[in-house]
């Protein structure tokens, strides 16, 4: 089994101190791989290391068969796009401007968009159903619309892999479903590989092909949603002492 993105014996952490060791994950094209786990368990740390924002402490990240280090910045940018939790507050940019910034790896020295680039921008906007508010200032649209615009920005980069860090946090339930269904459609249409982290177990269960459980100092388990989402295991992963996970409804319940 060879994936578009693979890590071998990867150690991740901050300031040279490993937080999680021996991370081996594999994301194939057309599949969605989701990281779940309690807050602060290291989901973001893994994602940040994979995208090169944090240096890998040991081990290797492979992108399409070659190590990340051996690829040029531009080459990586054409293969991998991101949607992270860092707040984006650009001055005086419309939603379309934000999306077109994704063409960066393809444009010339001054970054002027050619007609071809503009066509791809429009395509990406329509893929996330954002044409209606494309001319609105990015700072004026709702959180849900912003996330869709950032997803369109990622698509505009024409990647084969998208990495998303908790893309649904702060969205209300309608926007959560909307964003993830758009994502699911993208994966089908563009044969994308997707690696993301999610808080919402019900959503993770619905969209993932593979679920990776991060438990603070290790990867606890990797499996299909059916294997992972059992009440015993989820209760153990999230240290639920007095609550329980309801398998039928994918909800956490508090037992008094």
């Amino acid at each position, binding site marked *: 089994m060879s994936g578009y993105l693979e890590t071998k014996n990867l150690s991740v952490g901050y300031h040279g101190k490993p937080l999680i060791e021996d991370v081996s994950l594999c994301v194939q094209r057309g599949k969605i791989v989701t990281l779940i786990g309690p807050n602060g368990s290291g989901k973001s740390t893994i994602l940040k290391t994979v995208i090169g924002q944090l240096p890998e402490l040991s081990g290797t990240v492979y992108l399409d068969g070659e190590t990340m280090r051996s690829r040029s910045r531009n080459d990586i*940018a054409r293969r991998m796009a991101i949607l992270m939790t860092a707040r*984006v507050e650009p*001055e005086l940019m419309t939603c379309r401007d934000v999306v077109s*910034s994704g063409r960066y790896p393809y444009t010339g020295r001054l970054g002027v968009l050619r007609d071809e680039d503009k066509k791809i921008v429009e395509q990406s906007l329509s893929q996330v159903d954002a044409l209606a508010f494309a001319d609105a200032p990015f700072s004026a649209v709702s959180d849900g619309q912003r996330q869709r615009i950032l997803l369109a920005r990622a698509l505009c980069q024409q990647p084969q892999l998208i990495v998303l860090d908790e893309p649904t946090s702060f969205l209300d339930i309608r926007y959560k479903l909307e964003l993830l269904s758009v994502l699911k459609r993208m994966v089908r249409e563009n044969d994308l590989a997707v690696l993301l982290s999610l808080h919402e177990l019900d959503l993770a269960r619905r969209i993932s092909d593979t679920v990776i459980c991060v438990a603070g100092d290790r990867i606890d388990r990797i499996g299909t949603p059916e294997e992972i989402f059992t009440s015993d295991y989820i209760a153990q992963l999230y240290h639920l002492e007095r609550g329980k996970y309801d398998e039928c409804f994918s909800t956490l319940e508090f037992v008094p």
Partner: protein
Amino acid sequence: MEQKRRTRTWCGFLLLFVLLAVFLIWNLFAGSVQLSASQIGQILLGGGDDLTQKQIIMQIRLPRMASALILGGALSVSGYLLQTFFHNPIAGPFVLGISSGAKLAVSIAMIVFLSRGVRSSSALLISAAFIGAMLSMGLILLISQRVNQMSLLVVCGVMIGYICSALTDFLVTFADDSNIVNLHNWSNGSFSGMKWENVTTMAWVCGIALILTFFLSKPIRAYQLGEVYARNMGVPIKAFRAALILLSSVLSACVTAFAGPISFVGIALPHLMKALFKTAEPLLLIPASFLGGGIFCLACDLIARTAFAPAEVSISSVTAVFGAPVVIYMMVHRKAGRE
């Protein structure tokens, strides 16, 4: 939308060029010696009989105008770069204490070298200013790692500015009499007494820095979305940040070396240009900020030398009167827009 933007861009640049022409001509005519249009025309075309008149136009007014244009533009672009770097509209070479650092270094250089009888050359002054600017900049960067809040960083910058100014005042007090007049005029900021050789030097230094800045447009645009996204798009973040710092320091150092510290141009003008063009697009804003800064300094210099003639007001006083309200308006307005 695209059509609307294009129209706005053309109209914006048209307005800038008209203003530029107006203030260039006005500056040419204004002064204690009244000259007629035909006299000035003749002199500019290489004619004219009166040697004094010729001297006034060719050796005093023209170089002064050229330096106001170049240095004003350089200051404004320097401010634009710093605002990009710190992701904050209140950043500028003056409020962050960079101009004052350059000023202190130049005063030291002037006193040390002048007292030993070495003539202060442009290259020497620029180098000293650059070292001073970089030292202040380094200090600000160190502080910025500890202080996350931009307003606090600006307060620190202002404090650094005061310390440098105080030290400069000490030096002026203990300097030889012959140096003081020079030093005092310069340390308040002024475009007077510019020679063509100064103009040539500043044109080279600022010209090269501006061209390099223009070629940073693409990464600047990516950086506007934040460091994380810029890195993912392939911007070499460390090199890019270093380039921003170096270029903005060279530009503000060059200004300080020749004209002393000039306040508020660096903050106010990029903001005015953003408001005029309704975009933060660097390909537009870099040339627009340059033009805007140049025009603003031409206008302020006109006021500085004619309002209370024959006395001359320091250029910084004039730029502060017009620039500070813009900054205040901007800060109030921004806060309102966020909530």
